């Protein structure tokens, strides 16, 4: 039986406010703490968008430096993390555009693919299907699968479901409307699910029809 529970982790607190305040007063060690707190996330997001390790390294440095320079412009009405992610996303998109000269990469472009918008594969997965693969194999499967998504779907999924931004924060970060984020998120989730089914499907013992309850 499916149980219905929220996965989203809403955090109402702004625990970074004090750190940001210390940095503004000249305490650089507070910025050191902020970098250590969020560097992995920024690196991950940059890798997901650029799909290039060197670009991700550059984005990480540039995003933290830009955030430091612009800290006076940071308004306390959004979280420091969301603000930082917005900078990292913009830096990443800039690098992606640079690499794909002539090919537009825009967050608000219309995505025309219908793939995965309606579920087709209803085969259940094995219990704990990831245990059938080594860590390295699994990472490769997950990388390959998510890299196959259109960038506009991939980024929404990463920010909302992997990095835990709210739908509203994801919309604000990417300059999209909330309905656009929801629609992309659903299609990204369904496409990923469909593609992962190839690897995680429960192996059928007999070809006979399943007996209904």
């Amino acid at each position: 039986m499916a149980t219905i529970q929220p996965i989203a982790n809403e955090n109402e607190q702004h625990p970074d406010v004090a750190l940001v305040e210390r940095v503004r007063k000249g305490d650089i060690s507070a910025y050191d703490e902020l970098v250590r707190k969020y560097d992995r996330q920024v690196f991950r997001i940059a890798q997901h968008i650029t799909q290039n390790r060197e670009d991700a390294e550059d984005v990480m440095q540039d995003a933290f430096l830009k955030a430091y320079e612009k800290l006076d412009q940071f308004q306390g009405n959004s979280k420091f993390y969301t603000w930082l992610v917005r900078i990292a996303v913009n830096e990443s998109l800039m690098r992606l555009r640079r690499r794909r000269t002539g090919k537009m990469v825009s967050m608000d472009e219309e995505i025309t693919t219908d793939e995965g918008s309606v579920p087709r594969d209803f085969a259940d997965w094995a219990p704990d299907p990831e245990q059938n693969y080594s860590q390295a194999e699994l990472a490769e499967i997950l990388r390959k699968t998510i890299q196959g998504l259109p960038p506009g779907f991939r980024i929404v999924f990463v920010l909302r479901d992997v990095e835990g931004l709210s739908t509203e924060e994801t919309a604000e970060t990417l300059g999209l409307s909330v309905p656009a984020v929801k629609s992309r998120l659903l299609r990204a989730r369904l496409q990923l699910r469909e593609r992962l089914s190839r690897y995680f499907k429960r192996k059928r013992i007999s070809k006979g029809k399943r007996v209904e309850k």
Partner: protein
Amino acid sequence: MLDDLIDDTVSREMRADLQEHLHGCEHCEVTLNTTRKTIEIYRSHEIYEMPAGLRERLHKAIMERCRKGC
């Protein structure tokens, strides 16, 4: 509906109706469970890990430039 269920943004009445439907619809139940699993797998597995050496190097470079005023 699927994403509303996953994100728990449905009303109590709607949730009860959907729960009832899920009991009788194997396709919906499988789709809901495997979509949840998809999200969970991506959340719990680091696919772009930053090696410790690289992390320290980047961290040092960032902080050095911040100290110099960028």
